[in-house]
């Protein structure tokens, strides 16, 4: 009990400190609508779909609401959003292919190499559409609100979100330094996809 109390106090302290530096960090916009998936033209780039072929056609991900389109970056200046993205990164098995950002079956996400672009909207599209060399399409599987949270977390891995919004510690075994000390990479968007390394 006592420990919990301490934690809460600490939390409030950190929160108020953070408020001074960044107002958006501690917002918990539960009702906020996400930039909608409908707003983004969506065509699958691969037949390979997370969750199997039962998710039909090129339906957009279920969006929370399509009326408003808030600033994409609002997501990543908000610690709650990025933190949620981190949880989802495990829950949707991104970890299985990308590890904690160092990569495996999928490419590293903590480095400065971006095949399909590092902007939030580009990452959003990567997750929804899938990519030809083995990135499954999650369109129709993850609500677009959560895709934005994932995109912001992916960017935090490369040090591309404000340090005070990036997650700071881990409950689980982690392979490297925490996301909020990830060096801000100079993103390089022209990296070659795997297929380009093959003879033609």
């Amino acid at each position, binding site marked *: 009990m006592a420990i919990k109390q301490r934690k809460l106090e600490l939390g409030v302290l950190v929160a108020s400190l953070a408020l001074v530096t960044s107002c958006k960090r501690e917002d918990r916009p539960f009702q906020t609508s996400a930039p909608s998936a409908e707003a983004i033209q969506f065509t699958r780039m691969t037949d390979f779909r997370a969750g199997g072929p039962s998710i039909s056609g090129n339906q957009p991900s279920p969006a929370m609401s399509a009326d408003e389109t808030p600033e994409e970056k609002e997501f990543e200046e908000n610690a709650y959003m990025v933190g949620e993205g981190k949880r989802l990164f495990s829950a949707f098995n991104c970890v299985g292919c990308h*590890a904690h950002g160092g990569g495996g079956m999928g490419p*590293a996400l903590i480095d400065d190499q971006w095949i399909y672009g590092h902007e939030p909207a580009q990452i959003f599209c990567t997750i929804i559409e899938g990519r030809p060399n083995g990135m499954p399409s999650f369109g129709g599987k993850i609500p677009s609100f959560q895709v934005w949270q994932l995109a912001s977390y992916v960017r935090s891995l490369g040090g591309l979100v404000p340090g005070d919004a990036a997650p700071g510690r881990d409950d*689980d075994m*982690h392979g490297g330094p925490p996301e909020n000390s990830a060096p801000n990479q100079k993103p390089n968007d022209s990296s070659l996809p795997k297929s380009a390394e093959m003879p033609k």
Partner: protein
Amino acid sequence: MKLFDGTLAARLFVGLGCALISLIAWSAEAPPFRNTEEAEDGQWLMPAKDYANTRFSGLKEITADNVKNLEVAWTFSSGVNRGQEAAPLVVGDTMYVVTPYPNILYALDLNKSGAVKWKYEPKPAAAAQGVACCDVVCRGAVYSNNRVFFNTLDGNVCAVNTKDGKEAWKTKIGDINIGETITMAPVVINGKVISGNSGGEFGVRGWIQALNVDDGKVAWKAYNTGPDSECLIDENFKPFYPQDKGKDLGVTTWPPDKWKIGGGNVWGWISYDPELKLLYHGTGNPGVWNADLRPGDNKWTCGIFARDPDTGHARWYYQWSPHDLFDHDGVNESILVDLEIDGKPRQVLLHPERNGYLYVMDRKTGEVLSATPFIRITASKGVDLKSGQLIPNEEKEPHTGKVIRDVTPISPGAKDWQPSAFSPRTKLMYFPNQTMSMDYEGTEASYIVGTPFVGVNEKMYADPVDPGDGSRGAFTAWDPVAKKRVWRIKESFPVWSGAMVTAGDVVFYGTMEGWFKAINAKTAEELWKFKTGSGIIGQPVTYKGPDGKQYVAILSGVGGWAGAVVAGGLDPNDGTAALGFANAMKDLPNVTTKGGTLYVFKLRDGGEKK
């Protein structure tokens, strides 16, 4: 005009004779059961050399004395810079090389220093790259009856005519959309080409199946989880130990329905005893690594099946690691030899298992004769020879949310896929292996079709105790009768290449730095080494060229699970990258880069360099 011109007849005769001689020299259409010096035909028809999986060549022009005079004869770039795990094949005057994804098959002319005769491109689906757990490797092709057979990463079996490189047939047996790939080399037994699936990291249900060599039609398919009928288990199934007897154990040793996503894949080596009419194959790890999520023995994962190659029906089974805790796939090679054990001649199989024990088993009955640790083991306390059971070490039992430290063998095992060799001359086994330890933690895992089903965080490192000097791999010579190590060569990195031994008493292997080495099979003395362009994870072979000389060949090109850091361009700042292997391989990018080149060596003409 005379009908029979003397000189013409003579010419004809000579010509026929030549044809006959070359026919005799290269007539072997099937590899021998177990190769010997007498049976040696100078070819290399399957990655394991023979059905017994000895990787022993009877050629002896190259010896421990003269191997120092090896030099490069020619090289060939495969054009694919990913992990090269395949063994080149040699049939007559042609070599066949299959690349990692996109799985191009090249025919190279040995009369013309490896000039390309033809190439065959199966064009596998690009998405397959995302579901290949451990780099986009291919472990080789196999030759039979004027065709070369191999598997593509996206789950096709291809049959290619050697004459012109034209596709004879292609059959899709795997589905990448559920995470299924094929990385193993097939074998051909009695007119059937036999392959299994990979996908143990995606909750893919494991199987092995046989296709008719003529038309590619499926002859039989056996699953390794689920009801007996689908595992091809019937009244002729006679396992040695009581724990493997009973109805539908592939269902009852799992929580409800979990066997459907339960792994038990077949991606390693198959051996075959034509006298007993049994093939032997291991089964991979159970689906979802986190063992908390699948209480039970999880049959028939992490074990070995003996099956009838004509029907696929199971004859016996033994489980190396019941309820596997650490991803200890049981798919390593089993070498079939006859040895005198405790004064009695026995038909045995030798199996260096991922769980760290070298098993000597009666290959007729499935009885374990001995199981001896070949590295330091903390994950278990031994094998009870009476019950056949692995004795678990409770202290190292991982659970969700709990980090267990210093677990050895690591997930890739004391030894992974990298195949060993056995010399009938020295009666020793030669195997490449790992000397590493790991921290291991179970996490929650949800099954989403086509995504990994693992539920583990893991970090590997050099074994701090044995050898304890920071080395992570070794090349080991082992006496299976005396049950002891004869010698061991330590290597900085895991030795991820295969082994090959010759009647010249030379054993070959490669290192991840790129050194290709020749070792005295008796004394462990390093006789020769050559630095290739990239790290070596391939399988050495040796053959007699059209000029009658002995050649040695190896593919160089780092990758595989151990080398994914380089081949996949991963970032080792995250130690959990490459399912935790990256942590131990942070320095690999400093010593090697990607590659994909075949190197062929022969003795220097005129012997010693002046």
